[in-house]
């Protein structure tokens, strides 16, 4: 038995921060040059007090309204986020309450970044097959903006906030295969060092440091070593794509559309070159969304569907990669 995406919706915060806003705030930033490589013109940013849970709730309500599914038929709720409301309980428990889902629902969080959607699809298929659960609500939501120091252009130019809600149902088609990989050796190349139990927040962790490019951050902010992540992406992702295609006797020409995690234009261009996937087969919506972590792939998938880039019977390859270092690909047959 397989499972397929029966419905998909997303929700973005109202507030939009465009590059002109950032330039006014930071006149020394060479935004015109930076945007050529990031590809991000504007991004949605969560308001103060607006969390990933709130965004996930809005996306879920939208999905319940548009799909016509009865909320009492939801059997499982998976919430993928790295910006939860609390250390405990999980966002999934709180969302279960807010959506007034029935008792007996399996509800849990998954702490993953940009590979989170691929994991969500893999988990959904496994749960459907092993425990005969049905109607899985997969919510992927993050508000990285709250972790970013406003004076750190190396990350502030890239990331946006957003949430997606996906309904997965039992079917004869859908997820053809998923392959996933991890390279924990480089876990510290994309990290928020303080705030957990290893380095609790303190006055010391709140001290600002300024790097040689003038970016400021504390140990409670995101630190990203873009070069290492690009190297890891190039070392792992093209091989992962070749593997999943070969395992399923497929070639690039058999896939109608490739949807990569929208990391940055530079990363997407380099990946396209390394994998030799034709430009017209790669969907890109980073310009007005930015990098929205685990919500990136489903938002791009929804935009591709809205733009009629996918039709019934098409094979679509989704690929996510990021903090961890973690990566994965999924091939879907669209029904």
């Amino acid at each position, binding site marked *: 038995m397989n499972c397929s995406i029966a419905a998909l919706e997303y929700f973005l915060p109202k507030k939009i921060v465009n590059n002109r806003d950032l330039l006014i705030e930071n006149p020394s930033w*060479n935004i015109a*040059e*930076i945007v*050529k*490589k*990031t590809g991000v013109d504007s991004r949605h940013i969560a308001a103060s007090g607006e969390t990933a849970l709130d965004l996930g709730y809005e996306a879920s309500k939208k999905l319940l309204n548009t799909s016509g599914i009865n909320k009492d038929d939801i059997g499982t709720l998976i919430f993928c986020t790295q910006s939860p409301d609390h250390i405990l309980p999980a966002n999934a428990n709180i969302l279960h309450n807010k959506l007034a889902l029935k008792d007996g629902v399996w509800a849990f969080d998954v702490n993953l970044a940009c590979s989170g959607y691929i994991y969500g699809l893999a988990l959904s298929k496994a749960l459907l097959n092993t425990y005969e659960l049905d109607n899985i609500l997969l919510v992927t939501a993050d508000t990285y903006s709250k972790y970013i120091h406003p004076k750190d*252009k*190396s*990350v502030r*130019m*890239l990331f946006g906030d957003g949430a997606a809600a996906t309904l997965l149902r039992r079917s004869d088609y859908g997820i053809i295969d998923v392959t996933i990989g991890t390279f924990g050796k*480089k876990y510290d190349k994309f990290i928020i060092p303080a705030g957990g139990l290893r380095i609790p927040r303190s006055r010391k962790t709140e001290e600002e440091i300024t*790097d*040689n*490019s*003038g*970016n400021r951050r504390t140990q409670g902010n995101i630190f*990203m*070593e*873009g*070069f*290492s992540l*690009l*190297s*890891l992406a*190039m*070392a792992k992702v093209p091989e992962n794509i070749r593997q999943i295609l070969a395992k399923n006797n497929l070639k690039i020409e058999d896939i109608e559309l490739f949807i990569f995690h929208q990391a*940055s234009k*530079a*990363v997407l*261009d*380099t990946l396209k*070159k*390394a994998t030799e996937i034709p430009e017209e087969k790669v969907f890109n919506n980073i310009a007005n969304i930015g990098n929205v972590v685990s919500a990136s792939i489903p938002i791009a998938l929804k935009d591709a569907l809205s733009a009629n880039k996918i039709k019934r019977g098409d094979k679509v390859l989704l690929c996510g990669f990021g903090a961890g270092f973690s990566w994965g690909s999924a091939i879907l047959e669209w029904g």
Partner: protein
Amino acid sequence: MQNSEKVEKLVYEVVKDINKMAVQNLNTERIGDIPLQERLDSLAMVNLVVSLEETIKQEFGISISLVGSDTEDSSPFKTIGSLVHYICSQLEKKKRS
């Protein structure tokens, strides 16, 4: 002009374009010794890779990849000198293949 000199000039110009801060204190340094990762932030390093790959394609007509499994520890990108050496070796490899 020999390949390595041409590549060094090219890398220097790309670095200069990407981040003016990267070439501060040039008066006291040889170009080859300029420490890239100390001068360029995360975003600038990614931009450097992409810009260099584009420029090398234009100048030499050869498409090379500057990142992958052998650059995970970033050693070729430590200084302009080590980067020039890495680019020249990649160009040689491509020419031979």
